[in-house]
């Protein structure tokens, strides 16, 4: 006869085992990707595969920096940063108007969120033809503009829900005290939404950083992002696996670091605000 405490202990043990196994399975692809970047060519092409490198060798990274391939991470940073800043500014003031004045009513709000659903390939095709016309292909401005536009619905949608959480009474008392609406937005509402702004900005940034299809179509060499650079090694010459892997690590580590700081806002962010964390 087992006691209740023993049965509880067994249950917890089983759950813990399952949790560890599950985490190992989900971590394994990331582990494998990272390890390949440290392997020597002979280790990468060994059969049976080597499960860990004999020593951490940074030759591939050295090559990426020497040849300038690593600069594509810089391009990703530039386009992700500026498109995020722009989308946050335009999106925030638009969201304020929607939240407080119900501008355009339900139809405008629905139209904005439906823009989020448009398939990128269908948008990028005509945009590409337009950019050819205006000479915007392979320019920072072109890529930043498209990321801004594509992220705006998300920013507006999220910020609207965060602004609705701010008590109106605060704004009204500020208005009575003689603040203008514009001042209310920046001095009352913005500080109250700081957490929401940060979380939304991070998601916007991650989207632009991780995008592939827009960058694939709209960049060539000057502003190619790291995701496009990775595909340049597909089916390439010898040692291309090491480059795919090292380039992926360079692009992925920053995102992991950023994610670590936003655990609290993660659920609300990816559920489009459907779940308040």
């Amino acid at each position: 006869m087992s006691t209740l405490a023993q049965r509880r202990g067994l249950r917890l043990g089983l759950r813990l085992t399952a949790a560890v196994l599950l985490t190992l399975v989900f971590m394994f692809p990331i582990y494998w990707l990272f390890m390949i970047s440290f392997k020597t060519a002979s280790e990468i092409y060994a059969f049976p595969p080597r499960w860990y490198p004999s020593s951490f060798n940074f030759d591939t990274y050295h090559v990426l920096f020497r040849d300038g391939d690593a600069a594509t991470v810089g391009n990703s940073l530039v386009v992700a940063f500026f498109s995020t800043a722009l989308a946050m500014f335009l999106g925030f003031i638009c969201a304020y108007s929607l939240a407080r004045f119900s501008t355009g009513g339900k139809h405008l709000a629905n139209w904005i969120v439906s823009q989020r659903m448009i398939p990128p390939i269908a948008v990028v095709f005509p945009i590409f033809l337009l950019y050819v016309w205006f000479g915007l292909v392979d320019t920072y401005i072109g890529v930043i503009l498209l990321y801004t536009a594509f992220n705006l619905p998300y920013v507006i949608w999220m910020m609207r829900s965060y602004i609705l959480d701010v008590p109106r009474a605060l704004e009204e008392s500020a208005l009575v005290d003689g603040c203008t609406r514009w001042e209310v937005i920046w001095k009352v509402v913005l500080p109250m939404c700081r957490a929401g702004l940060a979380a939304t900005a991070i998601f916007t940034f991650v989207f632009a950083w991780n995008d592939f299809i827009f960058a694939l179509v709209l960049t060539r060499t000057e502003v190619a992002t790291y995701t496009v650079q990775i595909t340049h090694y597909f089916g390439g010459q010898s040692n291309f696996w090491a480059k795919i892997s090292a380039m992926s690590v360079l692009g992925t580590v920053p995102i992991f670091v950023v994610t670590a700081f936003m655990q609290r806002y993660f659920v609300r962010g990816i559920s489009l605000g459907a779940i308040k964390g």
Partner: protein
Amino acid sequence: MSSVQGASFGQRNFKYLLVGPAIFVLLLVGVFPLVYLLTVSFQGITMTETSTDFIGSANYKQLFDDARLWQALLHTLIITAIALPLELVLGLTMAQLFLDRLPGRAIFIALLVLPVVVSPIVSGATWALLFNHRFGPINQIIGWIAGKETILLWTINPDLVYPAIIAAEIWQWTPFMFLLLLAALGNVDRSQLEAAAIDGASWWRTFSRIVLPAIAPVMTVAILIRGLDLFRLFDIVWALTQGGPGTMTETISVFTYVKGFQQFETSYTAAVALLVIILLSALVMFLLRRVELAR
């Protein structure tokens, strides 16, 4: 009097002033492409033909005769129909596992969400490495289980490419389902669950009568978001198979890309892109009427 009127007029303009810039940028990607696609789709531009004369509805007629296009749509649907339920069930199971207190729970969850933030093109590349038939670890693991050396051509064999794509897809997005459902399960009313336990209700009865109705709204949103993402699936397929072998795994996005940017059938691609937008808009409108995101 006039100053009061002035203020209210100013405020009315102010709210449009705030919306204006964002709407302008949105029109750039929301409306301009539609108009442009519509125009180009009635022309006959290809790689060799640059004339912008209108040729009528020939491109639209071609849509209906293009077996490859409809197959691409079918491929997209197949991947969605298999990956989405699997992600949902797996995510729900994982959420149940992590619902109660567990040592290191926060660390497990933090690690498990990582696939969600990896760029899809990177995860596609990662799975291409894992599935590689000569140097990849997956064949080796299968070989251990089978007890003999096994070489499966994951990205080449027509029977294996779909499992490969779906595995990558599930790896990347099950954590998404997991996180959302975990949050939803955490919000289920505890007192109802305790009451059911006291009444001696079976696990299934408790789940179907109390838990499922409580998490249904979040589940719907999760399915909606993932369903629409799957409809646009591009990166993972591009990294793993580029639509191959042949056109076996071409999704609608891959097909559109190949037509537009590799075969340069500009006008026909415009018609395809419009078709994709119309199909998706119809789907979104249908779904949005049923679900209201965030109240």
